């Protein structure tokens, strides 16, 4: 048991290993970055939105 959370599942090494593997399998089902960049590589509107977000962050 994780004393901090009081949860028997927290910090269980077997569960952690399984969650890590699940994450890798989930990513493995997605198209490769090369394939994705063909469709999503150019995104000027989103680039602008994120640029504004970082600019606003820097102004703080």
């Amino acid at each position, binding site marked *: *048991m994780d004393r901090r959370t009081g*949860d*028997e*599942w*927290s910090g*269980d*090494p*077997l*569960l*952690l*290993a*399984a*969650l*890590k*593997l*699940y*994450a*890798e*399998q*989930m*990513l493995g089902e*997605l*198209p490769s*970055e090369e394939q*994705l*960049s063909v*469709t*999503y*590589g150019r*995104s000027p*509107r*989103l680039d602008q*939105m*994120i640029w504004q*977000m*970082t600019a606003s*962050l*820097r102004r*703080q």
Partner: protein
Amino acid sequence: MNVDEKSVKLEQLYALHKNVMLYTAERILRDYQLAEDAVQKAFMKVLDNLHKIEEPDCNKTRAFLVIITRNVAITMYNRQKKQAVPIEEIEQMDCAGGVSPFDQVASKESVQTIAQYIGELDKKYADVLMLKFYYEYSDSEIAGLVQTSPENVRVRLHRGKRKLAALLKGDERFNGSQNRR
């Protein structure tokens, strides 16, 4: 973490993972501009948790961003359809206490089996299990990330744990004492 460090990390995350985030959002929303809006919202949520992201260029971070984007997009989709996400009632905890179901076995095969069972869960349960136990977020932090209430997070955690425990219980490798009879 100062403002410059935050900005640099945000830009790194964007450069590395925006394509997979756009793909994830567009598959749910079926609209490129809405997908862009979802990715921006996902980054706004990530902004508050940047200090927890240790390594921008790794599978753990990539999976985290996919999970957050998926939840933002689903919320947008539900709002578009004017179908509020049903508020799940709080149930009595009936599997959280006692012994962890993972105590029984520890092998490479069992890791693969548990991962497979996690993959069989509804994504809303798998996502909160990931955020809670893999990324170690609190219930309140998860609620902010997946746009629901902390109560609903607790319900999803409870149900996810119960469903995963039931799958493990039905697998003789995780239920040796009962099956040896």
